[in-house]
């Protein structure tokens, strides 16, 4: 067994490019990981600041803002990975929407071709494909930068929108798509809506809890499966222990739900915590190789520096939270109240401190398992301390309840990781069967979390209606957005066309010399962007009925920004379509969060700029760290 391991290690290290990379490293080098962390951080920030932001209404608002921006950001990400820009993409959304309306409109006094939508919609798609083909062909034939060529297309489209709509209807807005033939059918496809308050589901909260808790548990198990070396022969005692702990966990959840007092909550929490620790240990004991060499505690200079810095920052954050007046809401500086400053200092300093401690744990993991678990234990204690500080220092139930328990869950996970990593052998070689199990668990886990969230968002309960919750609706636009993001991610990651895209964006001449049809690939990428613009144009037309001739002008920069925030490089050859989608979500969260928080809109762009800058810096920081440790 151990012989087999060592040969595998020897083989892998003989060529550094083929060296095995652990699960965290593989996660961290994904281009979109920084953006995902950024999106979660910004969401938590606004959740803390505003009450309605965290409700289903807030989620509906964010998803609504993300949908059209996201469809374009995904397509633009693909094009940017292929090394080109399309400045006409914003104007094209409006142009193609207007073109469709004009094709559909009655040939009465107001002009238009009066076609049935089943003919008009494919026709406008053909127009979209032509615009993309034109952009791509012009870029390829003239060898001019796509910046210049598509700037030309942008002006042409912008002018054509105004000129044609004035010529045909003598107005700068073109409208009444709802009077076209075939409207009721196509409306279902492009603009049907789900009214949350019309859909009650009594056992919603059960499925929600099941999805979230079960899904996260599976994700945690997936990480274990990826991270530890499998035993040759399974240890059944471990399986039994896991089963007992699982039952304990269920009991804990039941206690938590059945009791309403603080004492009961603590009892439930303790039962859950102990079961989790025992269960994860049992899971490891059942499946994984015990650790060979635990080693002695050895703290080198690097590790002590990271931990010292981390603990210092957390302490500073705690001091500022305790000393600044919690009740004061007087203006401290410009638009920040003293209370706001306190929250910002606390959250900023402690999260920076935690980040340094995590870096310290990574550094410690290179020495020996014992040092690593000690670091993890310190981290867990710190997070738990922060949780209790939050509970004692804040007044709102949001922090005393949700934030407190989430932090405790984080501490618990760190602690259980400390236990398992000091008990079991880390896997340092590829193992297809284990990877497949891990992937399956991760997939099912993610689907369960997603399903839980979707159930929660789509359905309301009688109790909520009674409290008078304001209506929230979810449009089919979101489904389009998710489908486009999914298909684009699959195309980029799993198809020949996807590989060609990365190749032409990285080095076009080299790609051409190894047989990649560079010109065709780029032209097809431009056509993908203009088809996305067509989709967005239709979504807008069916939503608004009437489109302004200026619709979409100038938004191409938002698409590019979303792609960059999502981790796509401006220079091409690196990035992901999924990242573009996340970038759009980040922009949507920042845009929606400002009015939800009731901040003065004069400062809107200051906030927006600051948030975007932070997101990109965080993204780069994480990528650099991950690449450096590769």
């Amino acid at each position, binding site marked *: 067994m151990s012989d087999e391991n060592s040969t595998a290690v020897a083989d892998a290290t003989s060529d550094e490019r083929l060296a095995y990379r652990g699960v965290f490293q593989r996660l961290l080098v994904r281009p979109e990981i920084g953006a995902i962390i950024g999106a979660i951080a910004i969401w938590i920030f606004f959740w803390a600041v505003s009450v309605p932001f965290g409700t289903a209404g807030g989620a509906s608002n964010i998803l609504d*803002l993300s949908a059209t921006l996201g469809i374009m950001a995904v397509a633009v990400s693909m094009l940017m990975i292929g090394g080109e820009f399309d400045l006409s993409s914003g104007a094209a959304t409006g142009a193609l929407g207007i073109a469709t309306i004009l094709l559909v409109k009655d040939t009465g006094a107001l002009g238009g071709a009066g076609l049935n939508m089943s003919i008009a919609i494919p026709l406008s798609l053909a127009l979209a494909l032509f615009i993309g083909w034109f952009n791509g062909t012009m870029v390829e034939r003239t060898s001019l930068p796509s910046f210049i060529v598509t700037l030309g297309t942008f002006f042409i489209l912008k002018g054509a929108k105004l000129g044609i709509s*004035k010529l045909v209807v*003598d107005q700068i807005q073109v409208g009444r798509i709802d009077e076209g033939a075939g409207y009721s059918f196509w409306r279902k496809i492009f603009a049907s809506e789900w009214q949350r*308050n019309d859909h009650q589901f009594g056992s919603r909260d059960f499925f929600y809890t099941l999805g979230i808790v079960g899904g996260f548990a599976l994700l945690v198990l997936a990480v274990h499966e990826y991270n530890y070396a499998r035993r040759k022969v399974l240890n059944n005692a471990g399986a039994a222990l896991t089963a007992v702990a699982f039952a304990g966990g269920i009991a804990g959840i039941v206690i938590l739900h059945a009791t309403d007092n603080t004492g009961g909550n603590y009892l439930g929490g303790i039962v859950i915590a102990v079961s989790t620790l025992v269960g994860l240990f049992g899971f490891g004991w059942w499946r994984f190789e015990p650790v060979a060499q635990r080693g002695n505690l050895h703290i080198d200079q690097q590790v002590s520096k990271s931990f010292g810095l981390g603990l210092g920052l957390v302490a500073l954050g705690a001091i500022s939270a305790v000393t600044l007046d919690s009740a004061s809401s007087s203006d401290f500086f410009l638009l920040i109240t003293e209370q706001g400053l306190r929250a910002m200092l606390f959250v900023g300093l402690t999260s920076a401190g935690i980040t340094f401690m995590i870096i310290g744990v990574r550094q410690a993991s290179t020495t020996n398992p014992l040092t690593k678990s000690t670091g993890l234990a310190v981290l867990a204690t710190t997070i738990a301390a922060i949780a209790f500080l939050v509970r004692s220092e804040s007044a709102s139930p949001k922090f005393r309840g949700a934030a407190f328990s989430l932090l405790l869950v984080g501490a618990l996970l760190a602690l259980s990781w400390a236990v398992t990593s000091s008990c079991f052998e880390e896997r340092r070689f590829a193992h297809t069967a284990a990877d497949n199990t891990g992937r399956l668990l991760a997939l099912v886990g993610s689907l369960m979390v997603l399903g839980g969230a979707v159930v929660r968002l789509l359905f309301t309960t009688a109790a909520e209606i009674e409290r008078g919750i*304001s209506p929230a609706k979810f449009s089919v636009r979101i489904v389009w957005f998710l489908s486009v993001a999914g298909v684009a991610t699959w195309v980029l990651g799993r198809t020949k066309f996807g590989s060609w895209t990365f190749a032409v964006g990285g080095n076009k001449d080299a790609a051409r010399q190894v047989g990649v049809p560079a010109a065709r690939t780029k032209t097809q990428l431009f056509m993908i962007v203009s088809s996305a613009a067509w989709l967005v144009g239709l979504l807008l037309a069916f*939503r608004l009925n*009437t489109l302004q001739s200026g619709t979409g002008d100038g938004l191409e920069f938002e698409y590019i920004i979303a792609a960059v925030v999502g981790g796509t490089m401006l220079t091409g050859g690196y990035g992901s379509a999924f990242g573009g989608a996340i970038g759009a979500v980040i922009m949507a969260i920042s845009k*929606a969060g400002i009015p939800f928080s009731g901040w003065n*809109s004069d400062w809107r762009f200051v906030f927006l700029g600051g948030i975007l800058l932070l997101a990109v810096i965080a993204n780069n920081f994480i990528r650099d760290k991950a690449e450096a440790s590769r």
Partner: protein
Amino acid sequence: MKKFKWLAIVMAFGLLASACGDSGSSNDNAADTSTTAAATTAAPVDQTQGGDLTFYMITHSDDGPFWSVVKRGAEAAASNLGVKLVWQGSNNDPEKQVQDIEAAVSAGASGIAASLPSPDALVPPLQAAVAAGIPVITLNSGVNDYETIGALTHVGQTEIIAGEGAGKRFNDAGAKVLLCGTQEQSNVGLEERCKGAENTFNGKVITQFMGGDADQASQQATINATLAADPSIDAFLGTGPVIAMSGLRAAQDLGRTLAIGGFDITPEIIDAIEAGDVSFTVDQQQYLQGYMPVLLLYLNVTNQNTLGGGLPILTGPGFVTPDNAAAVKALVAAGTR
């Protein structure tokens, strides 16, 4: 190849020379005409006949639905009076507007009507026109500067007064908290509309920027978020017709019934007013902003009349409400509202 090179050089020189010549001669013309123009105004009135008069209307028009109505008004006045009208829109380019004004002075305009979106650039050339003896009237924007220029009067709507009218309407509707949403940041006119509403509205006014008209989906979501964050808001004033419709959709999504008002006219908002979803829109009756300057210039040149007593002549606020929406709709279709 060599031949072509020579040809190119010769042509370039030719162009250069002609360009120099042009600019030189036009300068000369300017000097000439300004003196002659001064001479004509100094001379007795009977020298001018209606048919020989040429009035210039030089605006920042983008030839959108708003300005095309101004243009129709000006053309109607010109044909009624039997004078010539030269319409020049700069599409918000002050540089071009300055050039147009200078060209009109050179061409010996009988009168100039101009809008003043950027006073710093446009006041000096108009002062030069007045100094050259050409009567000037400002229209649409320029209410703060027409006196500096020495213009006869200003024809337009002051945004503050229009906003004040809107504020009174919300008082009548019994609203308590008014959200005033703008679609452009740092546009003085839009800010003044909200400020005017603040002057007359009895309750609280919250002024917020909601995102531009080019991204209506985002505009609607921003209004939605602002309304969700503050349940006490019971009225919405959009400083344009598009943002007013976004406000209506946002309120409908949240299941809230707000009193909604807007500014300016589109077929869409008139339909919404007719249906009773929007309470009113403020109309600045821009047809008058085209018609009146031509009429006033004509009366000044032919009969030395002035109107307004040195004060601006206000064309608004007129209101489109459910009562007159149907009538206004017909007039919009005819292109005069």
